[in-house]
């Protein structure tokens, strides 16, 4: 039994350490990360401001920068219009010293926790379907429009607790056209747009998550899926074609691809732990109507396949929807942090 006793002693030490870590809290570690994040903002502004100036993301970045250097950037009136803000931000950033010296100038101490790590302030959440437009219905009676609203509400709660501003395209069971949703997002000046859906796949064995950003597709499966999600879009086919052409290449698409990648990875990683045979169906581009008219990086996540019995059953439970929500938030945060990385948009 000597071996067993040794194991027990070791475990007790591990339990105690785990509890001590909780007692001491994660404060020191977190502070380290904040500091790094703030420092990288400086670099990012140089790298991104120029190409991104045409698009929302530059506004996003400059807005954040404005928050933590408020004193410097505000004009006398106290409010700064976006159009003047970006150039001011840029010129103000120039005299900043390189990242490793003279930190005190870049880093107001202590950092106000309400300042977000980086350029994401406003997240627009779009619970798929609503009203007459029920979306997919599972054999167990799960209705897509209800599931998407529930998950979106959970995401909202989590994001708000991380001090993001959240705008929902709908809070209730109402039918909005895809065009209305996009317009709502644009009016709210969202920094990113996340549309939440659940999937139905003919092969009932298949389960998993996939995340989309706007683009063309040759895949007949994706065409069918897009056609289904695009019902009642409020757009004509011609609109689609025009819009697609306008936004095709460009930063917004690349930003969207990165956001989709982060959300997809977080969804897959976290679901793998609870739903072990979940398939990573990957990041894809497809012509979803709701993604066309939004002016910010936009994605559509199909977070589960209700055509699969196991997944439908999991989806019936609040904890699983909570998992999904946490994963989406995790993905958004990963994306937000990536905005601070020097090679962002280079890859």
């Amino acid at each position, binding site marked *: 039994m000597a071996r067993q006793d040794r194991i027990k*002693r070791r*475990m007790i030490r591990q339990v*105690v350490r785990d509890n001590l870590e909780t007692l001491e809290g994660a404060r020191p570690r977190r502070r380290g990360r904040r500091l790094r994040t703030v420092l990288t903002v400086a670099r990012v502004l140089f790298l991104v401001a120029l190409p991104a100036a045409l698009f929302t993301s530059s506004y996003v970045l400059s807005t954040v920068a404005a928050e933590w250097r408020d004193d410097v950037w505000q004009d006398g009136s106290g409010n700064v219009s976006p159009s003047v803000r970006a150039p001011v931000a840029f010129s103000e950033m120039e005299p900043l010293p390189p990242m490793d010296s003279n930190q005190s100038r870049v880093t107001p101490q202590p950092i106000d926790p309400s300042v977000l790590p980086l350029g994401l302030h406003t997240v627009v959440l779009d619970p798929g379907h609503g009203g007459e437009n029920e979306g997919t219905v599972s054999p167990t009676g799960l209705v897509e429009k209800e599931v998407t609203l529930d998950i979106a509400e959970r995401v909202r709660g989590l994001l708000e607790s991380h001090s993001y501003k959240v705008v929902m395209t709908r809070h209730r069971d109402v039918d909005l056209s895809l065009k209305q949703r996009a317009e709502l997002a644009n009016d709210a000046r969202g920094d990113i747009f996340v549309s939440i859906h659940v999937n139905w796949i003919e092969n009932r064995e298949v389960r998993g998550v996939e995340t989309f950003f706007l683009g063309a597709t040759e895949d007949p499966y994706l065409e069918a899926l897009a056609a289904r999600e695009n019902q009642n879009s409020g757009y004509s086919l011609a609109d689609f074609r025009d819009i697609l052409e306008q936004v095709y290449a460009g930063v917004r698409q690349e930003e969207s691809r990165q956001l989709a990648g982060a959300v997809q990875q977080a969804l897959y990683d976290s679901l793998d*732990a*609870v739903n*072990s045979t979940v398939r990573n169906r990957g990041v894809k581009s497809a012509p979803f109507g709701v993604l066309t008219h939004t002016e910010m990086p936009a994605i559509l996540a199909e977070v589960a396949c209700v055509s699969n019995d*196991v997944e439908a*059953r999991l989806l019936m439970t*609040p904890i699983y929807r909570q998992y999904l929500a946490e994963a989406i938030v995790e993905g958004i945060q990963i994306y937000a942090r990536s905005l601070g990385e020097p090679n962002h948009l280079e890859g």
Partner: protein
Amino acid sequence: MSEATPEQESDRVLNLGVDLGTSRSSVSASNGVRQAVESYVGWPLDMVARKVLKRDVLVGREAIDNRLMLDLHRPLERGLIKEGSDKDVLAVRELLKHLVSLALAGADRESLVVQAVVGVPAEALRVNKQQLRSALKGIVDSLMIVSEPFAVAYGLESLVNALIIDIGAGTADFCVMHGRYPLEEDQRTLPIAGDHVDEQLYRLITSKYPDAKISLHMAREWKERFSFMGAPTEKVWVVAPVQGRPTEFDATEPMRAACESLLPAVKETMLDLISRVQPEYQDRVRNNVILSGGSGLIRGFGLALQEALEEVGGGRVRVVADPLHVGADGGLALAMDAPPSEWDRLAA
């Protein structure tokens, strides 16, 4: 390592093992007390109710019995403290207070040093660690929070090459023991367990007998008496009112289907966790699967899992006969084994 060290034998120290479950909670104490309560906490809704009940807060069966006068909470409902609910945080606190007072059995709290190991659903520990720690502050002198399946493993001395499957009301917790305090990768939580069976049974019976008036509560009671998986050994008859008249129904098939609805996900997770164990140890883990928790008592469950193991070379599943106390007992063993020097660092 179960003998207590001399310092701990001093009668000033009271060691506790506590299991805070989603549906039932229990405490085992070094003074021999062993108690369980239902995990409900309620506060009188108004002055009138408070006067009638003569109490500021009610816990367990008493809370259920007086639910109409109470703001009733089941704080760890789905294995999590509900997001943003202060009342649920308070309820967890009241639950622990109540269990400690049961363990004191009239002894003077002030004269004792109380050290508690508290097991919580693995998911709550993952998500609400900090929150739990502060919710439980100041009730005992020293506090160690562990995940419930770990407490079960410790109590059963299954610390190496074992797979614990603890299926309670809200969640099914899986934990592979490798001789270390389980890391996140050693654990899984499925959000389907006993409550899910109740819902399925309710749904299946209602759709088979639309005239029968049944409640979720009735479904749970029937389940706890007649649950089974696999071939039925006898028919399951239940009684429910139809237009006010008690009527007998054959619930055999609904019962089987409801119970078996847990199987696919549990099997799959079990096999997946085993497949991630280093190949040379898989055999030992397969032969050391432990099924615990109230829902592990579903007849035929252990056998069904053992059958699933046949597909990967066979194994053995043991069912814990007394799941109500095993977690708390494990916590108590851990509390007694931890040296005073470690306890000193964990002031609550």
